[in-house]
């Protein structure tokens, strides 16, 4: 039987001379009816380019197919080579026979049209439905992706829906014409873990219902386990290994696959938590940072006289303390207030209420001998592209009134070496470094002032898994060497498990559970923590089902003068407590 899709020796290049700049270099694979192929690789491996070549969207991104064939078995059993097909033919295939969903649901939908109109468009183009028929079809499509209250939601514009809901809408559009092949390009990368789990479950369910084939592209090999039948691992534009799911995960033969599987942070329910540096309260050491009753609210004003109509309660009564040499991870989903907490500690956001033991002084680095410093999420945005590394590293010194002298120069050089970059980097510019190297530069810059606390705001989230592992190791080493306390903000439980001594789970602006990392991860008490942990994708949880849950995070907008009820805590063990649920 001929496979649905048969790709042979595919080559894709970019630029004026595509043959000289090949990004995909001879990839071959087959996809049978109803099969799911996961393409795994790090950024720049050519996985997305491969997928975009299949429906020839690559033509619009400046790419050219320079060789090979892509044979698609069409509905009437005729075989068409997509690599050489003409544009009018392709227009009939995209959407009708090959559906596609993208990484960013927020930007793949038109913000000024209702989602109903956008779903109807697909039916109008490919099935010729109009008016009421199209609306009815759109409603059915939304029902199919389990969006509650579909008839009403059709009239919503994208800004009224959350990221997870929008990705469901994207899936509804992609599946509108019952394509026999769905290409999903990192469909959950921009989403929170619990939402990711819901989307993955939905995809698996829809696949079972429709019997379509799926090409699933991801950088996260942990995510593959739940959905794929077969896996293809890509590196530098070539498929280094492909085979059955179990074979790849259990007996990888190519060194790069082994490396990827090793580098990916395995979540082990707290068994892999750090055992060093157990906190010992009786020793009487002073905490490096103490946060007491932190509240951050952003007032909402409306009307002609801009009177207060309420406030966004971004952080609502957060307490924790952080010992020298300890890592406290703040875990939560987007919008939970974890980044706002970090920014308040650094004085980047003004707190409405609450106190910090070192915060007041640390907010202005000039007034503290050992200030609080921060490493940001995006290594590409946190270094000024027009300054040399020397100027970048010198900035904290200049800012605190110091002079750039031989001593500073020596410190810069030694820190660069310590974070694993050559001394010669000083004269270079940020764009000459890779993402991982830039993050090392950011770490070096944060260490220039010899801080007591370093806030790491999603500091490894933007990095590829293998780079991520190395940066995490570096952070642990630096912590031991300089006695640093880390406030590690993250949404990724597996990463947190590797670096945290203690964990605080934050939900809707409040800490719901806090305690020893091993204890919180192995015996979560709060229902939200349980949900978060259950959603972590791992290669050990193959074909495990996740309950579809369409609840949204409660609104953080409160009327003026609203105060949350005081928290009641329940103690579990020596260092582990959870908020009592209402």
């Amino acid at each position, binding site marked *: 039987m001929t496979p649905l899709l048969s790709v042979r020796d595919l080559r894709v290049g970019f630029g004026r001379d595509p043959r000289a700049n090949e990004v995909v270099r001879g990839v071959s694979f087959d996809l049978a009816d109803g099969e799911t192929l996961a393409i795994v690789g790090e950024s720049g491996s050519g996985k997305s380019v491969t997928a975009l070549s299949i429906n020839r969207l690559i033509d619009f991104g400046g790419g050219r197919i320079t060789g090979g064939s892509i044979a698609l078995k069409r509905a009437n059993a005729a075989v068409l080579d997509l690599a050489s097909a003409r544009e009018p033919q392709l227009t009939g295939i995209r959407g009708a026979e090959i559906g596609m969903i993208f990484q960013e649901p927020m930007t793949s939908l038109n913000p000024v049209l209702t989602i109903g109109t956008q779903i109807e468009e697909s039916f109008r183009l490919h099935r010729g439905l109009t008016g009421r028929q199209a609306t009815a079809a759109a409603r059915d499509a939304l029902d199919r992706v389990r969006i509650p209250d579909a008839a009403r939601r059709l009239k919503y514009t994208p800004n009224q829906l959350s990221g997870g809901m929008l990705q469901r809408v994207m899936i509804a559009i992609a599946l509108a014409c019952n394509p026999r092949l769905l290409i999903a390009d990192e469909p959950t990368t921009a989403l929170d873990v619990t939402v990711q789990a819901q989307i993955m479950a939905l995809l698996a369910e829809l696949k079972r219902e429709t019997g379509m084939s799926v090409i699933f592209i991801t950088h996260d090999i942990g995510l593959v386990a739940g959905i794929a039948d077969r896996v293809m691992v890509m590196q530098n534009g070539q498929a280094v290994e492909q085979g059955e799911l179990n074979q790849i995960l259990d007996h990888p033969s190519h060194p790069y696959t082994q490396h990827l599987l090793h580098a990916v942070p395995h979540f082990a329910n707290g068994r892999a938590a750090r055992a060093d540096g157990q906190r010992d309260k009786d020793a009487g050491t002073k905490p490096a940072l103490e946060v007491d009753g932190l509240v951050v609210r952003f007032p909402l004003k409306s009307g002609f006289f801009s009177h207060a109509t309420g406030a966004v309660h971004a952080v609502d009564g957060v307490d924790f303390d952080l010992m020298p040499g300890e890592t406290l991870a703040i875990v939560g989903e987007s919008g939970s207030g974890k980044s706002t907490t970090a920014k308040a500690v650094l004085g980047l956001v003004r707190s409405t209420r609450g106190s910090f033991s070192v915060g007041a002084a640390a907010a202005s680095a000039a007034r503290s001998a050992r200030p609080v*410093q921060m490493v*940001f999420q995006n290594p590409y945005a*946190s270094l000024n592209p*027009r300054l040399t590394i020397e100027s970048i590293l010198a900035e904290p010194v*200049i800012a605190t009134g110091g002079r750039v002298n031989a001593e500073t120069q020596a410190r810069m050089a030694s820190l660069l070496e310590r974070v694993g970059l050559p001394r010669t980097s000083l004269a270079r510019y940020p764009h000459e470094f890779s993402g991982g190297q830039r993050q090392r530069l*950011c770490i070096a810059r944060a260490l220039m002032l010899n801080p007591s606390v370093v806030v790491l705001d999603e500091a490894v989230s933007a990095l590829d898994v293998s780079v991520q592992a190395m940066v995490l190791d570096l952070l642990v080493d630096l912590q031991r060497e300089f006695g640093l306390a880390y406030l590690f903000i993250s949404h990724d439980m597996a990463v947190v498990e590797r670096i945290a001594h203690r964990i605080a789970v934050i939900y809707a602006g409040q800490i719901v559970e806090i305690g020893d990392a091993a204890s919180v991860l192995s015996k979560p008490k709060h229902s939200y923590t349980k949900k978060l942990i259950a959603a972590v994708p791992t290669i050990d949880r193959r074909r495990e089902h996740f309950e579809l849950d369409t609840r949204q995070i409660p609104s953080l907008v409160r009327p003026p003068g609203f105060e949350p009820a005081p928290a009641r805590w329940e103690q579990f063990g020596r260092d582990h407590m959870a908020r009592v649920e209402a």
Partner: protein
Amino acid sequence: MKRILRAIFGHGSGRIGGVIVGVYLLLALLGLLGLTPHNPITQYRIDRLHAPSAAYWMGTDLFGRDVASRLMAGIGQSFTVAFFSVAFATLAGTVMGLAAAWLGRRWDGIVMRIMDVLLAFPAILLALLIVTVAGPGTWTSVVAIGIVYTPIFTRVVRGPALSLKAREFVDAARTFGSSPSYIVTRHLLLNLVAPLTVQVTLALAWALLTEAGLSFLGLGTQPPAASLGLMLSDSRNLMETAPWLMIFPGLAIMISILGFNLLGDALRDILDPKTRRALA
């Protein structure tokens, strides 16, 4: 710098624009230094309204002055006014744009509303107004044209400055406690050099045109000094008997503006990271 020059000459329209602007700069310099074929204000009474010839390359005007020499002197004069007025606009616009973006809130509102009012007037009308109030002359035209183009620079600076202000490296600078002046100069201004360069080149073209317009109306350069706009104005009544009086200054204005626009387009392509290939 060398890299940018090389890139300009590697860019199709940049090469043409660069050569035109280069030739004009040379002519302007010669005109300002008085190195012209004849004295631009000497009146050769016998040779009045002489057609272009070997002695008078572009002919002579009603008073028997050599048009080629006056053209060079005029280019010198027009360029001087254009350069100083654009320098004025760049400085004033950058300072106000940065202030509006950095101080934000009320200051942003005040500065930008003033700029909106200035922008609401057509350029030449506003320049006319200022010159009429202050009295005609070279330096009043410089100030008038400078004020007219300040709002454009304010806008060009404010927009990117606002987005740079929200970038993480500015947040990072705040966490070390960097002073506002350090952040504004190193983090904002340094990243604004590219858009400003493009804007300066384009503004030079507009300033030349506005200067010519003011002089044409008799409010810019005063006779007997030469200026392109003044020469055009003088030629109006002799259009049919001595067309060279109009053709040469008219062409001079047109080609100079074409040159600056081509150069500006090339710079935009070269300095914009999205079309960075031109540099590689």
